[in-house]
């Protein structure tokens, strides 16, 4: 396997697609880390707050691994990490706003985090070796994020009544956007698979994801079944950023990522 993007022998178009995918994953994990971090003090039990802190740390670490890879593509990594405006982010739309309540948090933890993992799993045997190496360690940590999300999801679904209703509503607000995020079966998707960068893309990954969250959707009964059969529309879908919305995450969170308030303390 090739250790640099040049040695991987990718065409210019494939190289651009890989770069875009890495940025999508880096930005999504950076945002997910922020969202986890925002719930450290708001979680319903102390242990869940500690779990939020641990997951936030993991996601920030994963984001840094991905950003660092972009150096190989000639990108200014410091600028990407700390110099952009919200509309320049390529993070998954489901993370644009902080979850409004714990139900939204659990939907994010169980459904969004899992979507990112399904995408990372498709990179396990990547022809671009640095990606394959990085996702292996990261997916090890992700098992526990998935377990946390799943345990909470099932707990709330089992509770029935208002809790299960609120959880279903949070899932309904999240799942369609995630299904679209996996993208269409486009030339770009085919290019990535043919170059061996990913082992699946578009609808094949969407199917894998639906299979993975099948048990969670089952727990929501008929409302879950309806989500499973949702057919995403790709009108206005930007394949590079994997978004329809042209805005981005909330400005306050991006300002915190950039470290605007700490800038005065920077010493060279």
């Amino acid at each position, binding site marked *: 396997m090739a250790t640099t993007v040049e040695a991987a022998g990718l065409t210019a178009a494939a190289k651009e697609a890989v770069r875009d995918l890495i940025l999508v994953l880096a930005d999504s994990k950076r945002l997910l880390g922020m969202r986890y971090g925002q719930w450290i003090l708001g979680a319903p039990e102390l242990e*869940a707050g*500690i*779990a939020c802190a641990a997951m936030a740390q993991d996601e920030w670490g994963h984001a840094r691994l991905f950003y660092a890879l972009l150096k190989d593509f000639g990108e200014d990594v410091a600028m990407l990490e700390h110099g952009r405006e919200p509309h320049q982010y390529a993070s998954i739309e489901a993370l644009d706003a902080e979850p409004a309540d714990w139900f939204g948090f659990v939907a994010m933890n169980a459904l969004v985090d899992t979507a990112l993992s399904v995408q990372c799993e498709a990179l396990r045997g990547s022809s671009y070796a640095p990606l394959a190496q990085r996702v292996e360690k990261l997916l090890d940590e992700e098992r*526990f994020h998935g377990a946390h999300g799943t*345990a909470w999801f099932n707990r709330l679904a089992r509770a029935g009544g208002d809790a299960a209703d609120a959880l279903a509503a949070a899932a309904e607000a999240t799942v369609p956007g995630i299904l679209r995020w996996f993208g269409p079966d486009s030339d770009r998707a085919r290019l990535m698979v043919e170059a061996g960068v990913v082992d699946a893309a578009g609808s094949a990954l969407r199917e894998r994801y639906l299979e993975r969250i099948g048990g969670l959707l089952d727990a929501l009964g008929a409302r879950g079944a309806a989500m499973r059969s949702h057919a995403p529309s790709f009108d206005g879908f930007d394949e590079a950023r994997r978004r329809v919305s042209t805005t981005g995450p909330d400005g306050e969170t991006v300002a915190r990522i950039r470290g605007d308030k700490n800038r005065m303390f920077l010493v060279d």
Partner: protein
Amino acid sequence: MSTVYEVFARKARGEPLRHIGWLTAPDDDLARVYAYQMYDEERWFDMWVAPRDRLLEVFNSDRNTALGR
């Protein structure tokens, strides 16, 4: 309803299991996840949780009890 779970771990294969802490969790699944996330600052070989109320006292020198009585 939360249950108190005791957390045990060992550093290497063959070493005795050590009590390293406790936590509260609503079910076994979350107890495992919480244990991993709360006590992962060291490199453990393995880690276990058990509900505190499933640990049976054998004897206690202070209270001079034997077999839990």
